[in-house]
């Protein structure tokens, strides 16, 4: 087993990986940028090293410096977390050559799955259903127009080099093709340095279903069932759950078999996720493979009892998978809410600042993975995820009830969070009955922003707020006046807000 792991990430995921290291009795080494010198992952790690200035380019994305540091401090493995360098095939290749172990798949697997068209071709060759469309880059606008007609409108134009919604255009009818082609091309060039585009048929109102797999370096593959992540805003997931209410036993069988087929096709090892779009008839299509640990991995851990991060480390260290497929089953239901520092009513602007108050929630079925603590700074430079609240229950109803309870107890102050969004989600019939799809938030929630989505607080809460404001303000005035006009026994002394 490894002696020391360098964790090349920040925030909640670095914290999560450090926990796994500690449980396995491995020394954890953290890296941090200037902005993160007091971040929670730095507080928790056994060792921590300043890697550079605050912008990610100069710190968490600095491949050479990170590799040099790993050698210098005697780390025998690197865990990349998600984002940053986790799916950077060049970095992984550098690590492989250096003799240090990368906790993740091979650079070859990452490269082939990272290039959307090569992934599509590989999947097709291996009988994994892909969204109907092109397998080669479109050479020019005329060719694109022709393909679009063949596939049939509406179509999706996508960047071969990318992901995350960039260089992506939904085209509803032929007259919109040319302008969309031009815009998607220029967006893709800016984001990924290549304007190669391809076409897919638009799957109408699909669900986002993904399968977690684990594979060792000896060709053993298992799956940890599916997750559903259809609650998303502009391709960013907000609520995830496992299992999916829309997946029946027969569909699950086909989905998980297909996922393992896809992983085998690229000679995959370590933890990975195969993402699918699923239509109303429960036909599913390969979307992409995430060749890394995912943000939403805890919901799977909660329903299977497997610690995915520890499995990643053991697989990387050359151990055989100890878990057999027939030992696994789905126990209960888990839901995750991603807590972002964002001001929904101010156009989802990131909210930056110091966490001035932080009190965790706990109790039956609740888990929190977090990157913040009291007095943490939420810097301007990185992804605004603060924490993830995960709720487990015997069934979906109980998991949701526990989540709602936990969110009334979790106190974060100092930055604006998206916590109020979840109480909206958990009131929606479409969410509760499971008929929601990936357009759910964009079509039902966004039109209510700003303001109209918020329920008004109960009259009692309002009255409590009114009383508190007046009492705090009054205590301040008394202190300023130096006197104590309200009297010595005044219960409202010392209320001054600091």
């Amino acid at each position, binding site marked *: 087993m490894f002696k020391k792991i360098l964790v090349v990430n920040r925030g909640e995921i670095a914290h999560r990986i450090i926990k796994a290291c500690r449980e396995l009795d491995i020394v954890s080494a953290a890296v941090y940028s200037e902005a993160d010198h007091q971040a929670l992952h730095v507080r928790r790690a056994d060792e921590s090293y300043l890697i550079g200035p605050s912008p990610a380019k100069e710190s968490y994305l600095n491949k050479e410096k990170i590799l040099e540091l790993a050698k210098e401090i005697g780390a025998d493995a690197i865990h990349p977390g998600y984002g940053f360098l986790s799916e950077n095939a060049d970095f992984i290749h550098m690590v492989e050559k250096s003799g240090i172990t990368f906790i993740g798949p091979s650079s070859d697997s990452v490269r082939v799955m990272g290039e959307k068209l090569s992934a599509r071709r590989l999947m097709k060759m291996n009988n994994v259903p892909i969204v109907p469309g092109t397998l080669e880059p479109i050479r020019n606008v005329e060719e694109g127009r022709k393909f679009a007609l063949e596939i049939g409108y509406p179509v999706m134009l996508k960047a071969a080099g990318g992901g995350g919604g960039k260089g992506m255009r939904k085209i509803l009818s032929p007259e919109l093709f040319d302008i969309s082609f031009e815009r998607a091309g220029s967006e893709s060039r800016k984001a990924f340095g290549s304007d190669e585009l391809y076409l897919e048929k638009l799957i109408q109102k699909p669900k986002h279903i993904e399968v977690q797999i684990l594979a060792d370096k000896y060709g053993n593959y298992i799956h940890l069932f599916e997750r559903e992540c259809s609650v998303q805003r502009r391709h960013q997931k907000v609520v995830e759950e496992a299992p999916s209410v829309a997946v029946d036993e027969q569909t699950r069988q086909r989905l998980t078999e297909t996922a393992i087929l896809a992983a085998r096709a690229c000679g995959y090892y370590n933890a990975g996720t195969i993402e699918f779009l699923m239509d109303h008839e429960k036909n599913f299509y390969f979307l992409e493979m995430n060749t890394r640990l995912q943000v939403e991995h805890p919901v799977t851990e909660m329903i299977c009892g497997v610690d995915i991060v520890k499995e990643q480390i053991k697989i990387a260290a050359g151990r055989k998978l100890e878990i057999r497929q027939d030992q696994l089953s789905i126990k209960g239901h888990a839901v995750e809410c991603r807590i972002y520092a964002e001001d929904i009513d101010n156009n989802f602007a990131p909210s930056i600042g110091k966490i*001035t*108050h932080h009190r965790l929630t706990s109790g039956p079925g609740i888990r929190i993975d977090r990157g913040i603590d009291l007095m943490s700074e939420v810097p301007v430079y990185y992804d605004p995820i603060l924490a993830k609240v995960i709720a487990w229950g015997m069934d979906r109803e109980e998991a949701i009830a526990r989540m709602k309870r936990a969110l*009334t107890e979790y106190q974060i102050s100092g930055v604006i969070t998206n*916590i109020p969004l979840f109480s909206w989600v958990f009131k929606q019939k479409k969410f509760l009955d499971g008929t929601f799809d990936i357009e759910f938030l964009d079509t039902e929630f966004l039109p209510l922003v700003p303001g109209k989505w918020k329920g008004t*607080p109960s009259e009692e809460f309002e009255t409590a707020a009114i009383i508190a404001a007046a009492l*705090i303000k009054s205590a301040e005035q008394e202190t300023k006046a130096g006197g104590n006009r309200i009297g010595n026994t005044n219960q409202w002394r010392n209320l001054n807000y600091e």
Partner: protein
Amino acid sequence: MNEYIVTINGRKHKVGITDSAKVNIDGELIDTTISKISKNSFLLRYGKKVYEIVARRENADQFEFLIEGIYIDVLIKTSVQEVAGEMLLERNRSGRNSSIKAPMPGLLIKINKKVGDKVQAGEAVLLLEAMKMENEIRSPSNGIVKEIFFKEGDSIEKDAIILSIE
């Protein structure tokens, strides 16, 4: 007795604090007790229930309270301030001076105007980057750029005045 005007969800309430454990809200006397349990959290009892309240000060007159997962914004003024404020508002309506403040902290990516340029209300004047997102900041009024207090590449605190308009 200290008197306040408290605005919550667009509604104004008249609140009086007397010298007993009572608060007068819109003429109704309410029994209450409050204690401070940490730097910014309070326990308030009224009616049948104790409320745990986390307070965040936005500025001298504004609080954000967090009560059981619900954020409530409260504006509070002394009755004297309230009257003065209304007079000031009246005066501002007739004047034209305004400014652009940073709605969030961030990096100033681009300034589309220079001193002396005309601006239209709603016109994009600045580009502010925060957490990898670019945000266009628009002019609140018509006028002429009087002064610019930052340059491109500067990092800006929330509520800092970036530019003034005459």
